[in-house]
């Protein structure tokens, strides 16, 4: 009976891999230190210890049909609570408690790549002749991740941005002018949440 099960499971697995397994999960903003999405989904135990460890309540548990195979994994809804990178704490707590290494230790907070902030120029106040630099003020890497062009409009440096979502959280426009594109959007999982 177990043999039949293994065979069926392996067969189903093969089929699903061929159909690109990772299209069945939502692409969400992962906690800092997360491995690339396919590896993360393989390694995440769905135990929720990172969610419990987060001192700011930034991490949420992905539960629901739309999450697909990402059910039970942690994610950051940066418009609700962004990742504060454990400012005031010695370590990044979620990485410390992860039992499987789905979240890997990072040497320097600047090495984190959760995603990249993308400025929506059609709604951004600074791009519509208003003086606004709230994203720059909230950025943990000011003058590196967010700089200004000659007309004092914010510009994101994709190399430096870590995707913590602090700018997204602080943005005063109704719908955020600076949403975060999760790292998984660049490495496989395509379905937005």
């Amino acid at each position, binding site marked *: *009976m*177990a*043999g*039949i*099960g*293994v*065979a*069926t*499971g*392996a*067969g*189903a*697995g*093969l089929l*699903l*891999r061929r159909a690109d*397994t990772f299209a069945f999960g939502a692409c969400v903003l992962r906690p800092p230190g997360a491995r690339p999405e*396919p*590896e993360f*989904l*393989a*390694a*995440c*135990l*769905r*135990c*929720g*210890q990172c*969610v*419990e*460890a987060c*001192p700011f309540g930034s991490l*949420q*548990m992905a*539960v*629901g049909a739309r999450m697909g*195979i*990402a*059910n*039970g994994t942690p994610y950051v809804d940066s418009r609700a609570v962004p990742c504060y990178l454990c400012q005031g704490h010695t370590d990044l707590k979620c990485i410390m*408690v992860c*039992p*499987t*290494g789905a979240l890997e230790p990072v040497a320097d907070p600047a090495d984190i790549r959760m995603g990249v902030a993308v400025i929506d120029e059609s709604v951004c106040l600074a791009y519509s002749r208003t003086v606004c630099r709230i994203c720059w003020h909230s950025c943990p890497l000011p003058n590196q991740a967010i700089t200004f062009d000659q007309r004092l409009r914010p510009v994101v440096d994709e190399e430096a941005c870590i995707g913590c979502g602090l700018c997204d959280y602080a943005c005063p426009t109704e719908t955020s002018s600076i949403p975060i594109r999760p790292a998984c959007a660049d490495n496989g999982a395509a379905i937005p949440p």
Partner: protein
Amino acid sequence: MRGTQKHIFRWVWARRTTAAVFLLLLVLGRYEWFPWLKGNTAATTVCRIVPFADPLAAIEVTLATRRAEIDLLVGAGVLLAFGVLAGPVFCGWVCPLGLLLDLNDALRRGWTQRLHRGSWLVRGLRVPAEIKYGFLGLALGFALVARLPAFQTLSPINIVAWAIVFSAWPALLVVGALVAVEHIASRVWCRSLCPLGALYSLVGRYGLLRVRVDPARAGKLRCERCTQSCPMGIRVTEDYVVAGKSAIDHPDCTRCGACVDACPSGALRLGMRATRDTSGVSDHTTPGADTDVRQCRSRRPGKTWRRV
């Protein structure tokens, strides 16, 4: 009379209490001021440092990532070693879903008692118990090939814990469906479907902790209450007590003690060592052998139903 003993201590309440306490600790772990137990059914950290991991989850993740995380494997190994010694104790004593389904089954027993005893609903729909080994293989094969610990994503055990700990209530719909199904097919998840239970059943085959049968007291009544009470559908009376076995060594036995609670003659006991054979002692020392038969019959007049 001792033979008709009403058990003051009942295993069922001990078992429900431990499961409820575990669930309570999981819920408390949600809060920052409670650092002593963090995590979920898949993995927990006790007192900040001691890691425990669900053996099936750990195996799945190891297969999926092809990497060995020492902490994880040690934490899973401890629980697996306990499983080797004591069998699927987790199922009866810790599992939050087990607790929910156990309470649900008590409801089921309530309403089926009113039915005509010949009704198939009384016995319930039976699904072969071996299917769960197939599901275990399915979970492992899928984890290896698709590189996903799929059972951890779908597991109703995790879903119950997520729902209660992380207030993810909509996920309970899945569990609600299971609860409804179990009113027709009694304990079908634990008996026939759960891959985690299958893993514990596999490794716990030669465990030490068992329900022991007292050969001196056993088999006098054949009231079959042990068989009727068994949540895992083990035919305790026929296969063990009357067959003269000294212990119930069925792999599915979760050591929940339901049969011990149900036994009116005190022939069953949960323990590590076999009961000493006192069958040489004459029969009148066996407490209330004949009175019990009368008691059994007078309580349930005409009911000789067998829920096998």
